[in-house]
């Protein structure tokens, strides 16, 4: 039995090392089903990670999903002299926000952190976002717990490949992400502006929000981390169309949960019209962003910053 246990203990780390090495060597061939590495994307996360590395201080740091990076426009905040950086990425869940927060909080030294929380994201496993983060952000140790917590083979296989590749390969450092990608334009400060489009109303099926325990736990860890660094934070739910809001069967439960975690804001102006200010059921178009963002800046952010 001792021999068996000794061999098992010896074999496992060797097998792990061997697999990591093979993933690193063969991951770039594009043939391994469970390695999903893609540099660049509609969220311009690569450009954001490059830009934020050069920033020493911002007033507000935004984290969250596409609702964050398509809503909080740095140009509107700059009109009042507020510097912001938007680190939102596609389908970013609290599991990925936690990584970005730990990686960039100290370097960009924000006075306030705004974490966007959305009913559609809190019950999402975050696999797509994890893969995007691994591919586009310089590697850090914080990525490993995220990969393990995902319990997804594709994330677990992509993590070693992406981290080693991004650490050693010059192609990662020299990648030049074009600022325009289809209808999406990268705006300095982490914002992504979309060509003007309007929402065409359609039937929204009833949607029951079921927060995943892993995501609420990750959100709690983010907030605890911010508390430990004495950085104030705000949880924000960005506007949805009225059609979408009515489709949620338990929105009040979701909002109660968020309120119980910390300061929470779900600002939605009556002036927002579904067919004028949105390009789909849960994303504002640029006209909506101009309207909402200036109101959010004046009524929420400026008073908050003044108290700090």
């Amino acid at each position, binding site marked *: 039995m001792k021999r068996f246990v000794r061999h098992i203990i010896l074999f496992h780390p060797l*097998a792990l090392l061997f697999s990591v090495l*093979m*993933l690193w060597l063969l991951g770039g061939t594009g043939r391994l*089903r469970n390695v999903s590495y893609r540099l660049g994307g509609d969220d311009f996360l690569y450009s954001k990670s490059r830009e934020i590395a050069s920033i020493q201080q911002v007033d507000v740091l935004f984290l969250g999903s596409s609702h964050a990076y398509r809503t909080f426009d740095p140009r509107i905040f700059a009109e009042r002299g507020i510097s912001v950086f938007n680190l939102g990425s596609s389908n970013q869940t609290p599991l990925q926000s936690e990584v970005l927060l730990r990686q960039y909080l100290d370097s960009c030294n924000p006075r306030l952190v705004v974490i966007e929380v959305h009913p559609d994201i809190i019950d999402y496993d975050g696999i797509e976002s994890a893969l995007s983060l691994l591919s586009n952000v310089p590697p850090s140790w914080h990525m490993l717990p995220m990969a393990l917590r995902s319990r997804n083979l594709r994330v677990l296989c992509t993590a070693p490949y992406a981290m080693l590749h991004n650490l050693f390969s010059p192609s990662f450092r020299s990648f030049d992400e074009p600022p325009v990608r289809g209808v999406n334009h990268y705006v300095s400060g982490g914002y992504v502006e979309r060509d003007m489009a309007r929402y065409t109303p359609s039937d929204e099926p009833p949607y029951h929000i079921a927060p995943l325990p892993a995501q609420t736990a990750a959100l709690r860890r983010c907030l605890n981390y911010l508390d430990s660094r004495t950085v104030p934070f705000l949880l924000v739910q960005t506007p949805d169309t009225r059609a979408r809001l009515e489709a949620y069967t338990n929105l009040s439960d979701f909002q109660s949960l968020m309120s119980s975690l910390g300061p929470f804001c779900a600002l939605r102006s009556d002036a927002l019209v579904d067919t004028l200010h949105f390009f789909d059921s849960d994303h504002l178009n640029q006209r909506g962003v101009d309207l909402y963002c200036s109101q959010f800046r004046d009524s929420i952010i400026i008073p908050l910053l003044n108290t700090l």
Partner: protein
Amino acid sequence: MLFNSLHFALFLPVVFAVYWLLRPSLRSQNLFILAASCFFYACWDPRFLLLIAFTSLASYLSGLAIHRSSGWGRRWFLWANVVVNLLILCLFKYYDFFAQSFADLFLGGRSDHLLLHLVLPVGISFYTFQALSYSIDVYRRSVTPTRDPVAFFAYVSFFPQLVAGPIERASSLLPQFLAPRSFSYPLAVQGLRQMLWGFFKKMVVADSCALYVDRVFTSYSDCSAPSLIIASLLFSIQIYADFSGYSDIAIGCAKLFGISLRRNFNVPYFSRDIAEFWRRWHISLTSWFRDYLYIPLGGSRAGRWRSVANTFIIFLVSGLWHGANWTFLLWGFYHALLFLPLILLGRNRRHLDTVAPSRPLPSLPELFQMLLTFLLATLGWIFFRSPSIEFSFSYIARMLGMGSAGHFLSPVAGDHFIIIPAIFLMFSVEWFSRHSSYPFARQPRSRTLRWVGYMSLIFIIIAFSQTSEMPFIYFQF
């Protein structure tokens, strides 16, 4: 709890460690393995534990009663147990099927008031047959009934083979629960090796084939004839890799606990005729039907026509055992038809040895025979995979080019890239170890080479398996 799940990866080492820590006490080991098996099964549906408990208790008591009785009493207790177990099996598995068929025939399909819509308990066909074999063997006096209920319950519910076999006989498995077990390093290593091979077959070969097969079978009317042919060939390989992979994991897992289970597959796709195929495919079920149905019916010794009739009975029952659907009956009937010329010509026991016994490669006639047998089996699997008989004939018609042209789905592009190399690796390894007791038995002497081989296989599994847990095909039976 699936073998290919994270839960099982945590469950197995814990059970293994505690089991061997309890080693001096056989009773504690059996009690623990019984508790672990109950937990394993309860992960699917704890309600059905009562059903296993009832089946086990009925068989345990009937075994003792048969042993103590004589004359009609023996027969009465045997039949009581057989009828009770088969009634439970029929109620859960076949009642709705026969009720629906009755309604279709006589009530114009109106069956709402007749159907029970019962959930099929996982593994019911397997553990019911295992429990039945015990009481029949006690009746035949080939097994002495045990008085140890813990050992007996552990025998019926032993978790590696509880949900999809191999269907064990009391004469081989029960004594292993009654005798002290000591840890054997070679057996445990063999077990891990066999499990690794099983995981490769299931998670890489079977699940990769499943991607292609499911896409074609769900939209076969949009696919071209070559796609349908490829899908049916790949389903043959999928079902083999899936079920024999499961059996390898189960047998390997049992070896970790010092318990040997019978071989369930013996390279069936290297068979030279359909009779040989059935001696090598799902051996534990085939031999169950042979010993408890075919031979009692007279087998092949009651004249040629009686033998033919018995063969048809066996294959039809075997088809029905797989599932409550006319497609399974048709599949059984098809195999009986393939068997018919071999029986009539007295050539059903022509190939008792393994192909090319003293040569590395088969001769051309052998290769032709193997390919023909594989293709005949493949045609049968179309009935097995189809949801209805109409579907299967429509599929075959399109496959033969009767129908509008559809699109071709490449089996080598995109996510399907691994299918061909994985199949090649599987059949190569199994060909060169076809004379061994299990497919991955032949190993290089050098430990470094062996370990590099294991690590490579682990890497292939990690890099190419599906991200979601894919259930084993035979769990539905």
